[in-house]
Every structure is written in C-alpha cells, then in structure tokens.
C-alpha cells in the first residue's frame, strides 16, 4: 500500500516534469509553453493526474497532523462513505452538465475532501467515549480541526450565497446546501465533544448525558430534514429532481424518525417507571441477591420493580429505556403491560431469579381444576401477570350449556320440532358447546406451556445453558424441547423453529397428560423415539 503510493507519486512527478520540460523545450518561453500545455490533451491529462495526487498528498499530511494514525474502523468507514459520496457527486454532474469545467470539478473535489475530514472528526469524537486515555494532544487536534472546518464551511456558504444573490441560481446552490449540512454536522460534533469532555472530567456518574445526546440528535436531525426538504424543493423548481440528494435525505429522515420515536417512547417508559412502578423493598432486593443485572453492581436503594417483577437500578433502567422499552430480563414490553397492582403481589418468587414467572405458574398448577369437570372455567393463573410471549390471552369463560335433566319441559320443547325457532334454539346450544370446547383447548395450551417450561431445571444441555440460565421466556424452553430435532444432514430441518408451531404440535401430542412429571417423561420418550426414527431414515437413505 505504502509502496504503491510512493511509486504512483514518483511516476506522476516524473511524468509532469517530462511534460513541462517538453513544452519548455519546444517553445523556449513561458507563455507559449503554457498555451501549448493547455492546448495539448495528453499534457493536460498528466497535469490533472498530478493535481489529483497532490490533493491526496495534502490530505495525507493534514490527516497526519490532525488525526495521527487512523484506526482500521475509521479507515473502513471513510472508504465506505467516500464511495457513496463519489457516486452521488457523479450523479450531481449530470444535473449541471452545462457548467462542467475544470473549476467545477475542483470545487467538487474540495467538497469531498472537506467532507472526508468531517467524517473523520465525527468518528474520532465518537471514539472519545471508549478511549481510556485522552491526552492534551487529542483536545488540541480536535478543537483546531473543528474550528478550521467551521471556518471553511462558513466561507463557502457565504461565497455560495453571494454568488447566487448576484448571478442567479447555479451549481453554487448545491455547494451552499452541502456546506450548510456540513456546518450542522460540525455543531453536532462539537456538542458531542463537549459532552464527552465534561463527562470524562467528572468523577461522579452523569446520568442525564444520554438524555442530552438523545435530544441533540433529535434537534440536529430535524434541522437536517428541513434543509433537505428545502433544497429538494428549490432544485425541483429551478432544475430537476436532485437524484443525488435522495439517499442522504432518506437516511436523514429515517434517523430523524428514529430519534423522534426514541424520545417519545423513552419518555413514556421513564415516566411510567417514575410514577407507576413501585420501589423495590428490602426483602425483594435480598431475593435478587442485591445485584442489578444491568450494571452487575449492588442495589441498595433507588431500585424499581417492573410489572414483571424484575428489579433493576432506576438509573440503569432509564438508560436502557432510552433504547428499548422492554424488561431486560424477560423482554416484557413495559409500554403495553398493564400497570402493576399491589394486591397481586402475594405469590412472588424471587423477582430476579431465573424462571420467576414459571415458578409462580407451577405453584398454581395443582390447584387449578381440570377444565371438563369444573362448573365454570376459571382463568388459570390469576396471580400471574400475562407472560410476555403469549400474545393471546384467555377469554372469559363461556356460558356452560345446561344439562338435559335440568332443562324445564318448556325449554325441552323448544329444542324439538322443525320450526325456525326450534332450529335456532338447537343451534344456540351447539354454539355454547363449541365455545366450551374452544376454552378447554386454550386452557390445555396454557397448561402445556407451563409444563414445557418445567424441564428447564434439569434438561439443560451444556451448550445451551447460556440461553436458559436467566431467560424464563418460553423461547428458551422451546429450544430445549426441540433439541432432539437437531439431527444433521437434513435439508428441511430448522434449527430454531418458531415457538408457535412447536407449541402447537406439542399440545396436540400430549394433550391428555396432566401431571408435569409424567408429561416430561413422555416428552423425553417421544423425543428419543423421534430421534431414533430419523436416524434410521437417514441411514437407509444413504
């Protein structure tokens, strides 16, 4: 890489010398030589090449001054963004093909050149957060670079404005707009830099920094969206659709939308947390080993309990809610979950311990009456908050059709006969029976879900302990259950089938088992049988 660059520089220097020497040798004087050079296409090509290489060299020198060694990630990022920018510049050329001349190309090259430094500055400031040591050199470099870039941006904006005001719209519109975007970027970088710098000075944790960043993001993106919309409107009026601005515009709008959603949702989640969720009590804290699983540090006070009974530091939760509005442990969507009711807090398992909801559910299994014998079908686990993965809840118990013996003579008569009202009465009765059956099936599914969570404690496979240890979600259990399916060399086999499908065939297979233990045994036996059959099939196929 280095070698190649040196060789290219030397070759281009040599070529330039030859070309200039040749011109001077032929014309003997300065002006005729210049005229000769500018009229000769091959000579001009060499000169352009030389100019290009000079620009690259200057870029390298400036990079060395302001950034030192680039990290591989920064370099990769730079290359990737450069390609996009170059493609878009070429698209822009097509709109302004009438103005096409060397000066125009030079201006665009300069724009690209400055853009590259903006990107690098952005990456470098983002790196501040991760870097363990930030020296004085870093601060001096970043600040001077930002000032220089801001100066350049302002100068070009001013120039574009003056040019457009005096001579009417031209390609300067594009430059004015591009440099405005860049100056916004500088402001954004500067704010981030100041935040990080302040943060690194303070010893104490600064909790509102993430929130400030979130709002900055929102404001900056809003400004950018305004600029893009304005620019596109102006371009459409004067020239044509600025295709080259569409990709960055789309990306800006997307990030604006994301920033907006983040702000709205996180605000709602944090408000919920502050107002609705109770502070964890000392007993609950002790049950969770006093450890906040987000930061892995001790919880003494300021811990909040989510509707799913998981406990975290309020500060950690706030940071997490700024990204995701779910419980970190069980992924319950806190915005959709009902507010917790203190009355329901009787049968609580250790809130942060693994399988907390399951433990809760298990305690209820023996007490829940089997559905067919019950007079009315009760909702199975009144104390359990709705499990996160079961989108479908249990409907209220349907009316139970009266036994034939208890029907009055009048009601019986209504069921007989062939008139319309007799048929209606019979249909009504049939519908009631169907509703009952549906309810039983749903209940059965609930049971099997609970039971499916049981084998977790003993069946965990070494390679999957990671997934199961703290995640009481049904997904984990589904994985264990489908383990026997994992037989090599099948083209149709799915490593992680969706929970719904596996849950279904699972329930139909074993719908008659009621005791969890025998249920588990039968699953194991079934799985063993299945594995054996499949292996047999494969060996015969081969």
């Amino acid at each position, binding site marked *: 890489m280095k070698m190649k660059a040196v060789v290219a520089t030397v070759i281009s220097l040599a070529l330039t010398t030859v070309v200039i020497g040749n011109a001077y040798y032929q014309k003997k004087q300065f002006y005729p030589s210049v005229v000769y050079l500018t009229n000769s296409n091959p000579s001009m090509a060499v000169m352009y090449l030389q100019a290009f290489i000079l620009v690259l060299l200057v870029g390298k020198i400036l990079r060395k001054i302001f950034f030192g060694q680039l990290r591989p990630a920064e370099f990769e990022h730079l290359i990737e963004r450069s390609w996009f920018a170059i493609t878009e510049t070429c698209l822009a050329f097509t709109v302004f093909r009438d103005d096409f001349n060397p000066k125009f190309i030079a201006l665009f090259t300069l724009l690209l050149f400055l853009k590259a430094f903006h990107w690098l500055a952005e990456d470098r400031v*983002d790196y501040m*957060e*991760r870097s*363990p*040591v930030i020296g004085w050199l870093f601060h001096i470099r970043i600040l001077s670079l930002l000032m220089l870039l801001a100066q350049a941006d302002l100068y070009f904006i001013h120039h574009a404005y003056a040019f457009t005001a005096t001579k009417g719209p031209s390609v300067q519109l594009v430059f004015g707009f591009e440099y405005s975007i860049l100056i916004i970027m500088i402001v954004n970088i500067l704010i981030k830099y100041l935040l990080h710098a302040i*943060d*690194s000075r303070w010893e104490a*944790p*600064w*909790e509102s*920094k*993430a929130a400030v960043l979130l709002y900055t993001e929102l404001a900056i993106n809003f400004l950018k969206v305004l600029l893009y919309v304005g620019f596109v409107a102006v371009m459409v009026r004067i020239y044509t659709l600025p295709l080259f601005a569409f990709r960055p515009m789309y990306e800006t709008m997307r990030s604006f939308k994301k920033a907006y959603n983040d702000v709205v949702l996180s605000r709602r989640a944090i408000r919920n947390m502050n107002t609705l969720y109770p502070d964890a009590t000392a007993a609950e804290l002790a049950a969770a080993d006093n450890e906040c*699983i*987000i*930061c*892995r*540090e001790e919880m003494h006070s300021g811990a909040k309990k989510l509707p799913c009974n998981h406990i975290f530091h309020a500060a*950690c939760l706030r*940071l*997490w809610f700024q*990204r*995701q509005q*779910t419980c*970190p*442990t069980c*992924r319950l969507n806190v915005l959709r979950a009902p507010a917790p009711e203190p009355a329901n807090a009787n049968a609580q398992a250790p809130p942060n311990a693994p399988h907390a909801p399951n433990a809760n559910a298990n305690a209820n299994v023996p007490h829940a009456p089997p559905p067919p014998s019950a007079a009315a079908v009760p909702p199975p686990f009144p104390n359990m908050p709705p499990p996160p*993965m079961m989108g479908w809840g249990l409907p209220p118990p349907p009316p139970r059709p009266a036994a034939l013996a208890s029907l009055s003579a009048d009601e019986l008569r209504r069921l007989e006969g062939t008139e319309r009202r007799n048929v209606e009465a019979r249909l009504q009765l049939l519908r009631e029976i169907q509703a009952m059956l549906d309810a039983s099936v749903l209940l059965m599914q609930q049971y099997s879900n609970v039971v499916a969570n049981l084998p977790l404690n003993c069946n965990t496979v*070494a*390679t*999957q*302990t*990671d*997934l199961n*240890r*703290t*995640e009481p*979600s049904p*997904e984990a259990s589904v994985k264990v259950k489908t383990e026997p399916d*994992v037989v*090599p*060399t099948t*083209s149709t086999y*799915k*490593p*992680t089938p*969706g929970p719904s499908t596996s849950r279904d065939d699972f329930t139909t297979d074993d719908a008659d088992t009621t005791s969890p233990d025998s249920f588990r045994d039968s699953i194991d036996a079934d799985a063993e049988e299945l594995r054996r059959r499949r292996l047999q099939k494969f060996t015969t196929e081969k």
Partner: protein
Amino acid sequence: MMAGSALRRLMAEYKQLTVNPPEGIIAGPVNEENFFEWEALITGPEGTCFEGGIFPAKLVFPPDYPLSPPKMQFICEMFHPNIYADGRVCISILHAPGDDPMGYESSAERWSPVQSVEKILLSVVSMLAEPNDESGANVDAAKMWREDREQFNKIAERLVRKTLGLPPPE
C-alpha cells in the same frame, strides 16, 4: 457515566470469567489499558467437525456496553454458515433489537443487558456445533453444510489443524 459503568461491568465480567471460567473458553482484555477490546479462545465443541480446534476471536465493546452488544470477529480463518468471510460472527444474541441484517430473527433472541460475554461465547460454541443455515452470513458455507456435508467436514478439519499449527491432512 457510561464509559465508567461500562468499564466497571467489563471488569466485573472479566473477574467472573477468570475466577469461574466456563469449559473450553478463555477470554480477557487484550491489554489491561483498554478494557473495551478482548481476545477470546474458543475450543471447538466435542463431537462436531470443529472438535479439537482452538479458535481465536476478538470482541470489541461499545462505549455504552451493556446497553449495546459487542462485536465479535474470529481472527483465524473460519468456514461456517454463520460467520462472514472476514470472521465477523452473525448470531442473534449479538444484534440489538431493531437491526436485523438477515430479517428473520425475533426480538426475543436479541441482545439485552442481561446477556454477557460468557453467554455470547457459549452461544458461539453452540453455533459452531449447530449452524443455522437459514441465516447465510456465508452462503457458500451454508450451501455446503446443507448439500455436501462431507466436503464441509473436510474443510473444517483443515481449519482445525491450521489453528493447532499442524500441516493439512494428507
């Protein structure tokens, strides 16, 4: 705040991994100056085509860890349906909910602060044992895994020997 808490949590995890290491896995910061870059050695799971190999990988943590997942990349040659040609690992636990490069993962399997380095590495071990050929980070490897297992095993064996510094099999 973030950098500080991320650092403390990484230190806690490092301690935990050192005191109580999971079987077949070694992990820790490349140097103690920078806790945001780790190196890990993963032993190929027994009974699979990667058995016996010792695969080095590097983990890069974001400044807001554990709110965002780290990135993981094998630094040896790998041939696996869920590992990109450049060594980056593509498993759902390493993706933040919201970004889904392959468009098939449910958010329940994604990153959350409850996850940890240990869990990631264990997931990677289980990924080595059971590739998910639906998410083709390496399409060639996924195809070969499905259609020509013998060839796949051969390549795996070569890689295993390579990580051990042995000459390729005859």
